[in-house]
């Protein structure tokens, strides 16, 4: 009597126990490496900065207010911080432009690789990922070398007489954009390739057969089928661009700050750890907002693809 259901219940209980045991290592790592440090950052953002860095354990909302406002050092009144906003704006704008640029360049690249014979595809992918194995700092300095006033590009421009003076490229937004696009290009190409590789290119033939020209085949067949890759690649480029530190540091020359540099400044010269913490949380919030948009976007289409 009831033995069957009892056995079922026992098996289910064991299943649940096994599942917890199996996921325990992952949960411990998440707790130690993500939730723990984030909690510290969160707590620090509500404390008072110490004189030589570090924090004083006294509650203060100043750090959060300082994200968008600044206190006058003489009369102590708050005013809107244009400089902070422009850094936020530059970060978001440059990240968007980086995403767009890598997408525009990455799409034909991924398409090219996906349409090669299977054996040569791996070689192309390998070539795309090679720069990734080099230290980020070295790659960034390499770009600096290319675009600085005495660099190869300007030497070519002045040497051939196209311009009579070198064009200032280094320490501009353009330099940061170029650097970010170069660094994150593989992160766009790889997911794009992954989704394009799955496309049955007989569908392209079917498109041609049904009176679609090249442009319409691209718009109506290839792009919709590559959409998961476009979305994944955009997320993978946008998020790290937003928090980029080395690239804007080296190529922006400390003049053109992005969020990453601004946060670093608070922990370093600024000696305002709570502000650094609140800015970090703000960055995290922007990233999470972008991720939620992504989830929302894919969830709506997801129902269709899993038939």
């Amino acid at each position, binding site marked *: 009597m009831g033995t069957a259901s009892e056995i079922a219940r026992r098996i289910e209980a064991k299943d649940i126990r096994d599942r917890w045991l199996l996921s325990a290592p992952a949960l411990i790592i998440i707790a130690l490496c993500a939730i723990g440090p984030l909690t510290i950052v969160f707590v620090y953002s509500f404390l008072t900065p110490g004189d030589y860095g570090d924090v004083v354990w006294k509650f203060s909302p100043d750090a959060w207010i300082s994200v968008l406002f600044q206190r006058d050092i003489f009369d102590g009144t708050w005013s809107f911080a244009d400089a902070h906003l422009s850094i936020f704006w530059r970060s978001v704008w440059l990240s968007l432009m980086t995403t767009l640029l890598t997408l525009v360049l990455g799409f034909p690249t991924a398409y090219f690789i996906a349409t090669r014979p299977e054996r040569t595809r791996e070689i192309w992918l390998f070539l795309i990922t090679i720069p990734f194995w080099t230290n980020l700092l070295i790659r960034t300095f390499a770009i600096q070398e290319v675009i600085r006033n005495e660099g190869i590009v300007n030497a070519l421009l002045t040497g051939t007489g196209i311009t009579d003076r070198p064009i200032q490229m280094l320490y501009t937004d353009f330099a940061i954009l170029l650097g970010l696009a170069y660094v994150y290009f593989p992160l766009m190409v790889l997911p794009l390739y992954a989704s394009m590789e799955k496309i049955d290119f007989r569908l392209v033939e079917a498109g041609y*057969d049904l*009176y*679609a020209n090249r442009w319409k085949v691209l718009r109506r067949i290839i792009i919709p089928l590559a959409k998961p890759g476009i979305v994944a690649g955009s997320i993978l480029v946008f998020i790290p661009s937003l928090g980029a530190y080395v690239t804007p540091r080296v190529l922006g020359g400390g003049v053109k700050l992005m969020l990453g540099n601004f946060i670093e400044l608070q922990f370093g010269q600024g000696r305002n750890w709570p502000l650094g913490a609140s800015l970090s949380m703000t960055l995290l919030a922007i990233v999470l907002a972008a991720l939620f948009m992504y989830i929302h976007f894919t969830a709506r289409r997801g129902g269709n693809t899993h038939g």
Partner: protein
Amino acid sequence: MPERPEKSTIEIRHVSKVFGSGENAVIALDDVSLDIRENEFFTLLGPSGCGKTTLLRLIAGFSYPTEGEIKLYGQDIAPLPPYKRPVNTVFQSYALFPHMSVGENIAFGLEMLGRPKSAIRTRVEEMLALVRMEHLRDRKTAQISGGQQQRVALARALAPQPKVLLLDEPLSALDYKLRKDMQIELKRLQHETGITFIFVTHDQEEALTMSDRLAVMSSGRILQIGNPRQIYDRPAERFVADFIGETNFLTAEVTGLANGKAEVALPGGAKIHALLTEDRELNGAVSVVVRPEHAEIVSNANGADLKGRLANIVYFGTDTLYHVVLETGETFIVRRQNSRKSVDEFSEGTAVGIILADGSAQILRD
């Protein structure tokens, strides 16, 4: 110009297709010429690698001939891209767009042609009704069965009312029963739409049952063009006879020629008359072919055309095949239809005779 009895939809003139170059060059089509008539169900039949799909792809425009002309109602379409040809294809893999519904798939060609929205809607409904898929219009293509996908592929290709419909082994992925149904369905669709169908298959039975005419291909060449009866009863050469249906080949000696027939001596010594498929000098050993159903097996070997030992009896339901090993060591197969009266009068291992029906033997080009 001599007058043609029927109008040609497609004229293929001296078309060759070579893939690769230099030492790696592969000749996929070798000087192929062919006329396909209006409203015809025409089949390209041959083993894989014979060039039939290559020819179909040239007509569709997915690749271009190395040499020769492809004319559609007199206009050379060989240089046109596929989207400028009033020709549609049903792909072997169906190639339905996975990100679109059944209805959107069918509408695609019409949209690309810039037809007005209301006209597209009406046409899609018509096509859904034609292939009996009205209830599945809003389904995704991954949510319907293989047979249903097949129908959608057909409806999608027929919707823009092409001059010619190309079908690349469209039934090969279906199971036997569904394939039989779709064969009938295809004939009905061709009849109802009046569109010229060019059908590619390696299945000789499919080719024989469905085609108005068919071309048998091998190694990039067309070996014979004719209606199913001509191809089956009067194969032009050994390859055709061997590829279509089952055939017995006998080595025989020519002993005389008279009004289109040759008198030949069979391995056992018996003399029969064999039809000649072409005028040519004949002497010495030739190949004589006889279809299994044109021979009769008898228990009394005296007076039979061939003598041998019954090696194997294979029961097929409707027919029985008798494998007879002749005195020369060659195997000769006799097919006999089973009737309710027939009893197993033969047993394996016994001596039997074979009588060839009049006019059943032919001498073929090797």
